[in-house]
């Protein structure tokens, strides 16, 4: 892999202390708490966590797609120099599809079942100022770029005529047709078979490198994160508990949750032994315990862990973790 050196450029997307909450009559229920993350041009960054960890909400917040009563309750999201939090809808709509592109898990919810594929992609381009003929040309080019066979025939097809993998390629084509700087993806390969997933991931990686695109990839799949992103943030109970380069985080996890999660993943190689288990289940969003949210399930927890919330602290190798107990002191 020849991924460019991405550390020098200024970030395409900067998330700072982002919090998301559910506003009720009695107050605000916190769902996402103080997420900070930067993505530079040419960088693939992963947001990893289990259900309810806040990873998808974080992404919706970045896109400005939270629906009341769930709102951003603090922090900022900047795209280049532009602040997205609190920006008017008109401005966000203009950015979505041109500067920011999105793909989701289920393409059928984003594709119009009654409109031909080519028209749908062209429509998006026309909304951002392209003329009719130009839009059609670019739609065909976009379908070709995602390696769909016979783009002319496909452009006339309806979504239901395509397989899941082809639909996801169409979604990626539509997302990238506007030549965005940032691609946000929420589990776009989760519903696909692994052989198709592999093709989609390779395709996105190739286009991403060629365009020096910044990518934020939300996934629950540690395997996908390990293979696809260069940096990742692990989320638990609405917080980032560990963030750093993928190789460093997987090689020597600094947070007990990351370590436990990795031990729980079966592999197709190596010793066949019992999987690591994490007792209990993650706290429900809005019902996060005081102190460290993971403490009640954590083998390394100490009495202090339920009283105070550990902050993200640098641990070397570009990794930061939110834990009071350093790995050197962990019980086996």
């Amino acid at each position, binding site marked *: 892999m020849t991924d460019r050196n991405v550390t020098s450029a200024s970030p395409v997307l900067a998330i700072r202390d982002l919090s998301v909450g559910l506003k009720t009559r009695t107050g605000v229920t916190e769902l996402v708490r103080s997420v900070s993350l930067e993505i530079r041009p040419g960088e693939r960054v992963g947001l990893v966590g*289990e259900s309810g960890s806040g990873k998808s909400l974080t992404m919706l917040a970045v896109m400005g797609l939270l629906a009341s009563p769930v709102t951003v309750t603090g922090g900022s999201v900047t795209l280049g120099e532009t602040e997205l939090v609190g920006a008017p809808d008109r401005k966000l709509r203009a950015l979505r599809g041109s500067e920011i592109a999105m793909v989701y898990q289920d393409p059928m919810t984003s594709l119009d079942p009654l409109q031909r594929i080519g028209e749908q992609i062209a429509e998006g381009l026309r909304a951002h100022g392209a003329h009719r003929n130009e839009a059609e040309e670019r739609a065909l080019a976009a379908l070709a770029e995602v390696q769909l066979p016979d783009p002319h025939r496909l452009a006339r097809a309806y979504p239901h005529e395509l397989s899941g993998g082809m639909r996801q390629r169409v979604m990626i084509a539509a997302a990238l047709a506007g030549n965005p700087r940032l691609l946000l993806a929420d589990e776009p390969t989760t519903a696909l078979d*692994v052989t198709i997933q592999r093709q989609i991931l390779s395709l996105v990686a190739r286009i991403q490198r060629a365009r020096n695109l910044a990518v934020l990839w939300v996934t629950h799949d540690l395997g996908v994160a*390990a*293979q696809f992103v260069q940096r990742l943030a692990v989320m638990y109970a609405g917080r980032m508990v560990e963030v750093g380069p993928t190789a460093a985080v997987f090689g020597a996890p600094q947070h007990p949750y990351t370590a436990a999660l990795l031990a729980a993943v079966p592999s197709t190689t190596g010793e066949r032994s019992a999987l690591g288990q994490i007792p209990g289940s993650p706290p429900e969003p809005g019902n996060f315990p005081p102190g460290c949210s993971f403490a009640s399930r954590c083998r390394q927890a100490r009495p202090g862990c339920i009283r105070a919330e550990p902050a993200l602290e640098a641990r070397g190798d570009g990794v930061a973790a939110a834990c009071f107990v350093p790995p050197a002191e962990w019980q086996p």
Partner: protein
Amino acid sequence: MNSPAEQPGSMPGTDASAVGASGPTAAGPSAAVLTAPVLAAAGLVKVYPPAGRAGQPSIALAGVSLELAEGACLGVVGESGCGKSTLARLLVGLERPTAGTVLLQGQPVTNFRRPELARRLQLVSQDPFSSLNPRLTVASALTEVLLVHRRVPGRKQAEQRVAELLDMVSLGPQFASRLPHEMSGGQAQRVAIARAIAAEPQILILDEPTSALDVSVRAGIVNLLARLRSELALSYLFISHDMAVIRQLSDQIGVMYAGRFVERGPWQSVMSAPLHPYTRALLTAVPEPHPDGSLLGSADDLAHDAPDTGKVQVAASGRTGCPYFPRCPIRIDKCLTDDPPLEVVTGAHEAACYRAGVAVESGGVPAESGGVPAESGGPPGERA
């Protein structure tokens, strides 16, 4: 459907004898592989009628034979549309096969009345909430099973047994009074497993029991299933799309494609020395949780990997040749005309491939456009 040709006595003569779950060469750890199968299927075919006016009938199973040895775990792996869930439903008698027989302890499964069947064979499916009555507490749901199958003499004993069952699936006694919606997915799946074992069956058919679960929860269920199997001497037919999960539990692994087994053998052989090009494609595509670049690093060989139709092309009427032909990187002319049978290649390791074990040569592969099946409306697939 019980034509004379499908009598149990004809079993050894059919290709079911080549299934290889038994035999001294089997590398499986269980001594049980030497005993008679508790569950067997011979030549199972399932054809669904056309979905629409213009549609074609879809062939979900195109001739599946298998033997499940007592105390063994046969893992069945494959992607969507390969027929693995149809196989599960035929084996538990939820659907009738178009052709072929299912034998439970040597007798046609159709000879059993439903409660008798349920005392021998239980299904655990992907979504526990759809199999649990939303209005019944855990205790009521388990008690119902215990009483219907007379696994306890009366309600008083049922109460104690419910506590035992909950303990077996590592749920505390407080779960007895819970309703399904008061539980997480993992807890509900434990209850579904408790309900299955409450009937004291010999066999569990596990259809993607961990697929809807989060990573940390999934590990607990996989470990639980492994423990219950040894504690209760259960036989498992474990169905999953996930190679890594299949590997965790199985003695034998069978790989399904287009409604049939294309490879089957001891788990070590299938995982470390796969014979069929589809098995190899499947294994290569598993995103390993180690950042070794293995998934994208070898992206060059994707040019001749599965064409992106996403749907397995189940043999349609009048079609000849190997169903994997369109996607196969090592195909030869013969594969277009002849359909390779499942045959023993080494020891107990079988494959349905004329080129079994042949490595993919770099460069010398068919062009992707060559055999890409056109995406037609309504290709056959699994019924939900």
